[in-house]
């Protein structure tokens, strides 16, 4: 049969030579190969202590952002929920009362804001949809949980620490990417 490509290799059906039949020499060659692997670099990293860097476009766990004075940016417009292809986001809006101006930036805010991390596909469309820069995807991922309800993240889980009262935690939550951006700006 005419070969269609030149990639096919003919099978070698020659009878084994004496050295091959002895088998010992081939065992020795194989053992040399495994011995070489002793000195090779290990592919494993010690995970919790050492972590691989995320790619610069990594989309991880959501963060609800605050402005410079520590007020929540979210106004519960619902655009993120509409944009969400997995329908993972729900929220309930509430009106800001007198004396809550230092908590919420706009007159309307999200009293309840939940993302179901089991449904979420981490596409980042909510981040794109948000007109207030209130939600963005961070550089971490949702840790495992024993119950389904444990993976429905509410506002306490999602909100970024207050930059006024907890500046260090805020900086950590922003992540390296945001820090780099700030430096660039």
């Amino acid at each position: 049969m005419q070969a269609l490509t030149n990639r096919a290799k003919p099978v070698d059906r020659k009878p084994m030579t004496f050295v091959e039949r002895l088998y010992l020499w081939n065992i020795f060659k194989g053992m040399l190969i495994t011995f070489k692997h002793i000195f090779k670099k290990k592919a494993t990293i010690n995970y919790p202590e050492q972590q691989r860097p995320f790619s610069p476009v990594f989309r991880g766990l959501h963060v609800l952002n605050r402005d410079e004075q520590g007020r929540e940016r979210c106004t519960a417009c619902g655009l993120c929920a509409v944009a969400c292809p997995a329908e993972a986001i729900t929220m309930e809006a509430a009106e800001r009362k007198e004396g809550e101006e230092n908590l919420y930036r706009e007159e309307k805010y999200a009293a309840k804001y939940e993302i179901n991390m089991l449904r979420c596909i981490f596409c980042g469309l909510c981040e794109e949809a948000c007109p207030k820069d209130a939600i963005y995807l961070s550089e971490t991922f949702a840790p495992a949980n024993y119950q389904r309800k444990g993976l429905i993240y509410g506002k306490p889980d999602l909100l970024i620490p207050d930059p006024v009262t907890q500046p260090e935690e805020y900086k950590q939550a922003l992540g390296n990417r945001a820090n780099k951006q700030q430096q660039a700006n």
Partner: protein
Amino acid sequence: MYSTLLAFDWLFVIEKLVLIVGIVSISLVIAMYETWAERKVAAIMQDRRGPMRAGPMGLLQPLADGLKLFMKEEIIPNTSNRILFILGPCLAMLAAMMTSAVIPWGGKIDVFGREVSLQIADINIGILYVFAVVSMGVFGIMIGGWASNNKFSLMAALRGASQAISYELPMGLSLIALLMLTGSLKLSVIVGQQLDGVWNVVYQPLGFLIFLICAFAECNRTPFDLPEAENELNFGYHQEYSSMKLGFFLFAEYINMFISSAIMATLFFGGYDIPFVNDAQLTEKVGLNLMALFQGGVLFAKIAGFIFLFMWVRWTIPRFRYDQLMNLGWKKLVPLALINMIVTAAVVLWLKK
């Protein structure tokens, strides 16, 4: 007159008891760390890291494994023969430990003016004893597999038994050639000859090779681990075993490996002989006890080398097919060992003429 009959050398009994306890516990600890070393060697050869969480470098891993085995549920199948089912792992363990009795672990030591030889029993048929006990190891596999009342276990037991019997033959034949050179079955004499002269492996390279291959087969190590071939026999003769009974079977394999490494080192690689050093002169220089320590250390280094070889081969070569195993045993190794024996005999006769 009665007093002489009743005079019993209690020191002798105590000395031997201490030796037995010491050697048994040393071989148990070594078997324990062989499991660690096996996993580490496997990991390193596969570019992984191996156990490293339990203790520094994972050194406490064997303890954790042992604890796990002890904590597991002990299951004895309904249809099995209870007594034999329990006897199987016991025999395997017993046979594995018993061989250590005749191996000389070092020269003599001096304890409070008493010369103690580091060998439990210096019997004049040392090698025959080793052979007898090694053959007994088959009973552990055979009884354990048969008593499980399970097709796979029985097949594995049959395989194990026939494999061990087939490979004992070339092993014995290769040793006959060695015995023609040494002229003694006593292990201490064989080591003593190598202390002064050249190691036996120089005179008997082919014999050593055959012995090595047979030792792999006798220990049920890859490439001859057909009795426990997990992809065809579903873990083989210890399929029905759980908890520490399984642990005993696995442990017996590692002790066997240690002991056969010790025997190979003793018979072919000079035993406790320190290479490139005149042992008698060094003894005068450093004293008896320190010398025994050196010799013991050298012997254990040789054993460690062989154990590494066992592991190295295991993680390099795939398992033989059963007919290949039998072909190798009966059609290659037996004739080779016979030729080796005849040639050695002829050369010995020719040189002594």
